[in-house]
């Protein structure tokens, strides 16, 4: 079993590394897929393992996006003039400046949302259930509305991120962003897998199943909830920073703090794949992305209608997700021992 797993992981890694060369036309889509998987996996830490259903991870995503772009510009040029000039190329980054700025920006985009998550988490992670859900929804929308009113990051007219420098031909941009997002994806997956194999995951699950009891057992639930959220925020910020460079244009409510799209997508992907599993969000995000691109291409204009219907259908009919369904069907594959006679007896009682 273990050996098979290792072969599987190596296979996926090799496929991931080779993917942009196998499908050269889909580099941007593949990078977006990586970002979506990162978002779904990190959402799963809250929604799946901890039982705190948040709409607020979009806050860190958008924050990371703005911070990365601002640092990348602000390190070399005056930020206010850059946003004022809009798409015009009055300032041009040299390749070295671009990559230095990107690296620095990603560091800031990862660190600041983590700190913000710690501070906000202290204030709102004490809320339970739907109060938490609505509160985080409010946070996401508030962040979008407020950042839409700040002049220095472009206010309503948006913020153009620095264009990719002219090195290594036309294909270089796609490959750069693909490998960047792939590295973040691998990092996220390794981190999440590592923390899921420790006591930390059991504590999160205890919080999900019964928080009062967990507290009574002597677990400092608040501490672990905050740490969980900070881990999420770290990777959400990174994902946001990369996405900002990839899209090339940041708008407060349509790209960065897009609660109506990205904020719901991450919830939906995790639920579609199966909350509270390691592979669920990954599979869910992959299926969702393929499905979404199909819809966005063939039903242009009707995509949000389809999205609304999709949310309702998934939530009502597949709340356990794909992994939950598989688990019910083949329990022994998930390491659950099922007594066949016992199961039959139960079926008869029904």
């Amino acid at each position: 079993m273990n050996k098979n797993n290792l072969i599987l992981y190596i296979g996926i890694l090799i496929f991931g590394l080779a993917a942009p060369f196998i499908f050269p036309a889909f580099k941007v889509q593949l990078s977006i897929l990586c970002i979506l998987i990162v978002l779904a996996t990190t959402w799963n830490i809250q929604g799946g393992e901890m039982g705190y259903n948040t709409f607020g991870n979009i806050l860190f995503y958008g924050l990371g996006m703005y911070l990365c772009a601002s640092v990348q510009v602000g390190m070399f040029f005056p930020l206010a003039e850059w946003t004022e000039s809009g798409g015009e190329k009055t300032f041009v980054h040299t390749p070295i400046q671009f990559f230095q700025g990107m690296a620095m920006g990603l560091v800031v985009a990862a660190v600041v949302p983590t700190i913000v998550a710690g501070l906000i988490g202290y204030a709102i992670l004490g809320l339970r259930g739907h109060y938490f859900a609505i509160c985080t929804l409010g946070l996401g929308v508030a962040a979008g509305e407020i950042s839409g009113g700040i002049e220095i990051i472009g206010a309503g007219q948006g913020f153009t991120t620095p264009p990719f420098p002219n090195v290594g031909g036309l294909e270089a941009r796609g490959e750069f962003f693909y490998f960047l997002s792939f590295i973040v994806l691998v990092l996220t997956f390794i981190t999440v897998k590592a923390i899921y194999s420790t006591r930390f995951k059991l504590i999160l699950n205890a919080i999900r199943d019964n928080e009062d009891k967990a507290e009574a057992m002597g677990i400092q639930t608040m501490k672990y909830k905050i740490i969980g959220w900070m881990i999420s925020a770290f990777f959400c910020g990174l994902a946001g920073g990369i996405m900002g460079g990839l899209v090339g244009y940041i708008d407060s409510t349509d790209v960065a703090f897009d609660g109506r799209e990205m904020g719901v997508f991450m919830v939906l992907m995790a639920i579609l794949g199966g909350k509270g599993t390691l592979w669920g969000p990954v599979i869910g995000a992959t299926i969702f992305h393929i499905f979404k691109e199909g819809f966005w291409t063939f039903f242009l204009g009707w995509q949000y209608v389809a999205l609304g219907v999709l949310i309702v259908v998934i939530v009502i009919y597949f709340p356990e997700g794909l992994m939950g369904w598989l688990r019910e069907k083949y329990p022994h594959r998930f390491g659950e021992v099922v007594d066949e006679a016992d199961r039959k007896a139960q079926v008869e009682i029904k």
Partner: protein
Amino acid sequence: MDFLVFQYPMITVQACLDGILLGVLFALIAYGMALQWGVMNIINIAQGDLVILGGYIAYFMYLYGIHPAWGVIVAPIIMYFVGIAIYKLVINKVVDRDLFISILATFGISILFMQLMNFAFGADVVLANSGYGTTMLFDNNVVLPNSKIFSAFISILFAVCLVIYMKKSRLGRAIRATAQNARAAKILGVDTEKVYAATFGINAALCGVAGALISITFTIHPYMGLPYTIRSFMIVIVAGLGNLPGVAISGMGLGVFEEFADYILGTEFRIGSVFLLLVLILVYRRFKLSRKREYLK
């Protein structure tokens, strides 16, 4: 930023009156939300979109030459059936499930409605002109549109009618019984399924009234729904479930807060300040509750 508010006291009076008239409308929407929350234990994110849909009904009557004030009668009737339809299609499958499932399902409905309205009515900001004129107060220093006074009056009328209906009628008593204990009500012969459908229908009808009034007094736009949901949620948690005077007072308070935020911070931060206020209220509530819990220890 401008601090005209502190230099001209009349602006304060204006903002307070505007806010109170606006807050009565919010309180009407919040009453619907409190009703379904209390009875069905569902938080309806699509509440605001139902409001906007009601507004478009009144707007279309205005386009076809009927005075939009009649929308106050027509919109709730149409919205009642829309509410029943939503209940039959979606809500009855999530009633007794996890609360987050209902939040997400109604979020899906909200996105669906938003986009369908965008297709059907276009993405323009519209308003139905009632032609009621304005009232001048305090030596013409305070200007109140008559439509706002009309809308506040109609809201109060509907709220009072509904309260009396809930107290006296058979269905009203059945709804209150279900809210107290659904299982016991079922045992005593209340058809809870019907009660739930009626509750959701009444809630949608209330939203329809509020929407029609909003289309007369303010503007409507397909994407403006979510702030109304958040406002009504906020009013309900501040007032507490089943506290009707509280809903009215906190609705008015929210209206006044918004008007002042509008004057002091600027219009672009108006919606943002509403959402931030929600977060602040929830945080305050959490620290208050945690203190209470420690006290119990």
